[in-house]
């Protein structure tokens, strides 16, 4: 965000916020301990808006729920922006001192009147206006989101639309005001920090910068690629073009987690060579030419991970490795040796110290300090620096430090998978409290809360389709069809259906989803599938 890939606030700040906007996030179930901090904010008097197509268990805590149509987030954000501008609630001082591009942005959102916003999003105009006014007037406001914003073909634009709102109101760069993307996995932030991005070296340093690349080339003693690499969706396309011929997959189960399972599976079958390094023989590993049994990173090896508040924390080995399994670092070094590069047998701390010598934002984070301080939030420039609770304070410095933050006008585009008479219902996907992603890990414990996969429908749709709880239905999208029992969920509005992808062995939800991806981030559109639901005749079920 504004040049740094991480959330701008600390969890602590939401406890002291005046207004909380939770957008496309069911944190109550997907990020339960963050929600504890949010609840403290509510107990301390904060007002809360929930923006979500479903009236989730998170939304039930909100003062108002904005049940927008799936994929209309940019329309809603632009309508909020126009209302803030027309009501004279823009933080003009902040916009003048810290931003660029306001005039173009204001002109761009001008067509998003409250009526137009209501027409496109389905949210009543007065509720949109109330959110706009409360957000602009709040002393401290936290704008939080999760995959409801990013699992769309317009993922990056969705995020920019929210960033624009923070610039318009000055709700960034101050204690209590910020932008909070909640990360879905324990080290997705750390993966980015460490340069597991097609265009970045560790520390979000640009691969295409001559100066940066020279620094890494000098340290590593070899020439590095000048161009950015591919993100996941581009890799799959490259496989289909037969340009990418070998794949080394570490700790990922793309056959079950990628949208459009059948296409992903077919692509992996096309490869000349597939190596999978994992803790389980996943369905992806079953396809592999070579499987390298790995360690459970947070239980069986030493290292660090980075959380959603940019906090780098130590993980430590608590269990001995089973069977032939080896630590990931050990496997990588052994592989390098076979390929003719002697990397020795470095410890996790030695690798981390090399990283600190190359990534200025991690420079002050020695293992000793991470231990003493219970983790450190980046940036941490040197061993005296405590780490930053919030980012972009520079925008408020007198005079402003660094470049201004630009507004990016973004255009609303509806979901690709169009609703038609043939496919009249919208299916969206998400997680449940006690399960996680493709269920590889959570399938291992006996949760009293767990129930098998269902197609969740509104009671109205169940009446219309003539089905009752537990009836098995066929769900058809433009990609494929599956069957599942029906479950009534009053949190759903008519026309909206919900499934998880926790139980791919029983119910292959991602057979239905689209793999159209956001050209900027490579994230697939898991959240917006057009489907048709049909009751199965009793004999078919039999």
């Amino acid at each position, binding site marked *: 965000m504004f040049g740094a890939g991480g959330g701008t606030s600390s969890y602590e700040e939401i406890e*002291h916020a005046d207004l909380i906007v939770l957008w496309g996030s069911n944190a109550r179930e997907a990020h339960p*301990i963050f929600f504890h901090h949010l609840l403290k904010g509510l107990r301390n008097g904060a007002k809360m808006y929930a923006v979500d197509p479903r009236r989730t268990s998170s939304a039930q805590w909100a003062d108002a729920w904005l049940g927008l149509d799936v994929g209309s987030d940019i329309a809603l954000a632009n309508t909020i922006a126009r209302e803030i501008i027309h009501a004279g609630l823009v933080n003009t001082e902040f916009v003048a001192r810290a931003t660029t591009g306001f005039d173009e942005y204001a002109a761009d959102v001008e067509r998003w009147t409250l009526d137009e916003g209501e027409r496109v999003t389905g949210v009543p105009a007065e509720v949109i206006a109330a959110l706009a006014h409360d957000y602009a007037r709040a002393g401290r406001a936290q704008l939080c989101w999760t995959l409801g914003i990013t699992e769309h073909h317009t993922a990056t634009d969705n995020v920019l639309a929210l960033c624009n709102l923070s610039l318009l109101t000055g709700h960034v760069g101050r204690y209590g005001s910020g932008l909070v993307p909640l990360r879905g996995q324990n080290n997705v932030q750390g993966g980015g920090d460490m340069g597991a991005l097609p265009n970045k070296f560790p520390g979000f340093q640009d691969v295409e910068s001559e100066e940066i690349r020279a620094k890494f080339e000098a340290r590593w003693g070899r020439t590095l690629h000048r161009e950015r690499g591919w993100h996941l969706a581009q890799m799959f396309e490259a496989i289909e073009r037969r340009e990418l011929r070998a794949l080394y997959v570490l700790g990922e189960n793309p056959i079950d987690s990628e949208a459009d399972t059948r296409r992903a599976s077919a692509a992996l079958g096309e490869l000349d060579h597939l190596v999978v390094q994992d803790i389980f023989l996943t369905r992806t590993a079953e396809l592999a030419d070579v499987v390298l049994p790995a360690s459970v990173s*947070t239980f069986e090896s030493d290292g660090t991970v980075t959380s959603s508040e940019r906090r780098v924390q130590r993980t430590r080995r608590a269990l001995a490795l089973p069977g032939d399994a080896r630590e990931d670092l050990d496997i990588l070094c052994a592989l390098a040796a076979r390929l003719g590069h002697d990397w020795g047998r470095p410890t996790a701390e030695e690798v981390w110290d090399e990283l600190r010598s190359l990534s200025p934002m991690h420079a002050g984070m020695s293992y000793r300090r991470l231990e003493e301080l219970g983790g450190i939030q980046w940036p941490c420039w040197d061993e005296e620096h405590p780490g930053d609770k919030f980012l972009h304070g520079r925008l408020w410095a007198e005079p402003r430090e660094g470049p201004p933050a630009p507004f990016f006008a973004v255009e609303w585009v509806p979901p690709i998978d169009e609703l038609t008479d043939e496919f009249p219902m919208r299916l969206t996907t998400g997680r449940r409290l*006690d399960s996680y992603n493709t269920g590889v890990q959570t399938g291992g414990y006996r949760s*009293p809360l767990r129930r098998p996969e269902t197609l969740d429908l509104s009671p109205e749709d169940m009446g219309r389709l003539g089905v009752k709880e537990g009836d098995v239905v066929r769900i058809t999208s433009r990609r494929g069809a599956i069957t599942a029992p029906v479950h009534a969920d009053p949190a759903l509005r008519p026309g909206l259906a919900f499934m998880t992808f926790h139980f791919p062995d029983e119910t292959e939800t991602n057979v239905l989803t689209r793999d159209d991806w956001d050209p900027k981030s490579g994230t697939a559109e898991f959240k917006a599938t057009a489907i048709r639901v049909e009751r199965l005749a009793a004999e078919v079920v039999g």
Partner: protein
Amino acid sequence: MTITSPTAADPTPVSLRRRIELSVDGQPVTVHEGDTLLDACRQVGVEVPTLCFLETLAPVNVCRVCVVEVEGSRTLVPSCSRKAEPGMSVQTASDRVRTSRRMVLELLASSVDLSLAGDDVQRWIAEYGARADRHGPAAAPAAAGERDRARPGHHHVGDGLSAATVHQPAKRDNELYQRDYSRCILCYKCVEACGEDAQNTFAIAVAGRGFDARISTEFDVGLPDSACVYCGNCIAVCPTGALMFTSEADLRAEGAWDEDRQQVTRTVCPYCGVGCNLELHVQDNTIVKVTSPLDHEVTSGNLCVKGRFGFQFAQARRAAD
């Protein structure tokens, strides 16, 4: 690292708060505005027994074992919640204080199984001369569900020859928790952790009155039919072993639970991106319990069902060896 009270609305650093001078057992002590008498006692090294107090929970003042005498106050005051005021003169070892604490410990020890309540409780019982046997032999345990059916106003008075107790069979209605209310001192910590102080799920509360009071789900339904989401935060704060993970209860039943052989390793939860720290309690290369440090500012000791119980996948790998 500091522990933030769940009720603190004000992020004012401690260093900016007003200073308050008072005395504890004649020793002068300076604390900050908002600090309690318990804070003042601890600062001068005076031990005050506590049962229902926990740094991460709002005080509920129910156990009365932390009472102290404040000059000019008609009644004894609970030190865990009473705020320090300038010029207070506090006595922690007067006859009145010692008698009151002895009575609390004696009544609890005679009616509740305190065998897993920790070494401090056993030491206090001895130090204060609390004699659980003074009330006669323990009455026969209640049948399963008997205490849960007690209604206000219908309390059955005992025969005067035996000590009334809360003894009853342990409850096991799901695969993750055991609830053994023979060990429950009604400290309310589980209720607070399930309620406003942390989880805000409100699956349990105190039902009944007087000696019939007990922790209960709504209408005493089993946990699977209650609002419970199995975060285990009630178990994490239970001071007497009344609430226990089945993994621990089973090992104890087999006589295999051995804390001296357990290593506790701090790491980070393998699930979502919040970054909760886990303490893995490992015995014989097997995770037997998961907790989170109270002073970890991300969790304040709380976890969700995945972090608390979702470690089995790592064990399953070993079983398959």
